[in-house]
């Protein structure tokens, strides 16, 4: 365990960012999101949740796959270079890290998504314990411990100090590189901070959410429930919940015409949108009820069906905080529990 005074963090950031890009929560125009560090950046490690999850550091909202150029009657294809530079993500919360492990199941299984893999391989992730969880958090319901990050490095902010220790080879390398800035720390400081966090977690209203009615093999029981018809009604079909979610993984592939050039790119898609999975014959989900149902069934039933019971939600609570109609996965889970 190593520690550094909080007022020396700036030095640490400057040092890391000299060698590789550094991404961390930054405030810009009244919103806090993961962004690239520079001297002017207003770093906000004190905030619990960034508006957007950090998933777009690995799976950007839109990214070019390749482009085609036509010249003199010939078409040439320009492949898109992979992200091959190392980078550091600093201050990721453990729910968001757990979400990456969910995305891994999708993008790193055959056929491997090379764009995603390149970013995963090149990233060193520093997970930061949540000193003050919020009422919308329910990571514990999925067995995620917000007091002990599972990234390459686990970190804590306790009083005047920032503590960290490495969990992986990549983590060890980062600690070695920056060792001159740190001093040795007492393991016991961190242990008591962890106990404190776990005490708070025990008091948070959604942490004890019970998922026993969900998971593998529940399709028949849930799919035709009349509850969906009631639950979806206030939904605006905006897709905010899918775009702020760290585990939502659907994308669309589109072409962008730029004169003589065509850029093929992919961008996040949302099951809440009317043209989601649109095919030549039309769409297989024709009502907003069906689209709404898809989102929650995917997270709580279909994904577990295909991934040994793992849910595609980590309880980050962003959909709870951000849905303009105040709907969310918790309300869905509870409504079904009430019925059962």
């Amino acid at each position, binding site marked *: 365990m190593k520690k550094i005074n909080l007022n020396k963090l700036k030095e640490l950031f400057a040092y890391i960012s000299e060698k590789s890009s550094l991404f961390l929560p930054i405030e*810009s*125009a*009244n*919103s806090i*999101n993961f962004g690239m560090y520079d001297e002017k950046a207003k770093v906000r490690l004190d905030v*619990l949740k960034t*508006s*957007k999850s950090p998933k777009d550091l690995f799976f950007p*909202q*839109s990214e070019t796959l390749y482009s085609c150029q036509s010249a003199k009657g010939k078409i040439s294809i320009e492949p898109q270079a992979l992200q091959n530079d190392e980078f550091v993500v600093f201050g990721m919360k453990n729910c968001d890290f757990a979400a990456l492990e969910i995305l891994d199941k999708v993008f790193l299984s055959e056929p491997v998504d090379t764009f995603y893999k390149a970013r995963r391989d090149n990233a060193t992730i520093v997970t930061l314990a949540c000193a*003050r*969880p*919020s*009422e*919308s958090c329910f990571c514990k319901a999925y067995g995620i411990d917000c007091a002990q990050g599972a990234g390459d490095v686990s970190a804590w902010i306790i009083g005047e100090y920032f503590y960290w220790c490495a969990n992986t080879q990549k983590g060890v390398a980062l600690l070695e590189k920056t060792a001159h800035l740190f001093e040795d720390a007492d393991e016991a400081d961190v242990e008591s901070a962890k106990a404190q966090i776990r005490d*708070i977690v025990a*008091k*948070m*209203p*959604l942490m004890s959410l019970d998922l026993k009615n969900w998971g593998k093999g529940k399709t028949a029981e849930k799919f035709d429930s009349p509850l969906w018809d009631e639950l979806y*009604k*206030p939904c*605006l*079909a*905006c*897709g*905010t919940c899918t*775009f*702020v979610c760290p585990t939502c993984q659907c994308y*669309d592939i*589109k072409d*962008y*015409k730029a004169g003589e050039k065509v*850029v093929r*790119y992919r*961008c*996040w*898609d*949302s099951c809440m*949108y*009317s*043209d989601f999975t*649109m095919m030549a014959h039309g769409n297989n989900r024709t009502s907003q009820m069906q689209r709404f149902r898809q989102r929650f069934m995917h997270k709580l039933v279909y994904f577990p069906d295909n991934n040994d019971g793992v849910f595609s939600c980590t309880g980050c609570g962003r959909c*709870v905080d*951000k849905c*303009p*109609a*105040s*709907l969310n996965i*918790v*309300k869905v889970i509870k409504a079904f529990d009430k019925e059962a």
Partner: protein
Amino acid sequence: MQELKNRIKQLMEENVAQRALGWKKGEFGYDAQAAFFESTDELDDFVYNGFCGANLSKYMIEACKKEGRTIICLKPCDTYSFNQLLKEHRIQREKAYIIGVGCKGTLDISKIKANGIEGIVDIEGADMFSSENLLKIKTVYGDHELAYSDALLERCNCCKGKEHMIFDEIIGESADTVSADRFEQIEKIEQLTSIEKFEFFRNELSKCIRCNACRNACPACNCRKCVFDSDKFDSAQKANSDSFEEKMFHIIRAFHVAGRCTDCGECSRVCPQNIPLHLFNRKFIKDINMLYGDFSAGSNCEENCPLTSYSFDDAEPGKI
């Protein structure tokens, strides 16, 4: 609130209307949601308090597709949107029984949380019809107090007025909430150089994730199929492929709602990235007022909109 609930119950029992469109309580006291109440039993969960910011008028489009009449609760500002939807023939008057509900301003949960208040388990004092001005907020980290009037949404600090523009009956008193001039910030932006303006909006819009919450919450955005959703046009976008598209979406939307936007403030209220979208619309409102005389979209159903009617006295481009 009980009076309002009782009245809705009575109207449903007397078969004046078959259902009600109101708000339902949430998990933490601040996350009330819009809801259809199909039977009087369901009214147990009905709430009307400072956290009922959602403007229900757009849900009337859905309600009109249903059998019979729907009771709809509208705050003063919501009635402008309702009128505007009527004017655009998106809803039918006879399908609605409008209860104009009194308003002492709606609350901004992000403003409350910006005071470092986290871990909220309960909020007392958000009642709409009480004259108390104190929110008592219980959190896992300790209790807080905050003046109701310090936690209002921006739109309520420059409320258009507490008169309901359309209603069948009114329940509850309203209270004045105005503490700022509606066009003050617009005037400030007008003073900037064009480069500064561009910088300001670029900064704000670069946060946009194209989640469409602003568009979908907006009562003026009521097209059956939005041009940005249609795969029949090149304009279909699920994401901003570049910063040009990011601005284009918002600028087109602002132009499309110009003269129809009632300044209900829903776009800014729902934006997950805190983008002050109302600034675009207010600039148009201010300019329309200047060029064509005072006009307030949705204040009635009859008046022509200056942008969709022509008169010989209309302002000419370049001659203002």
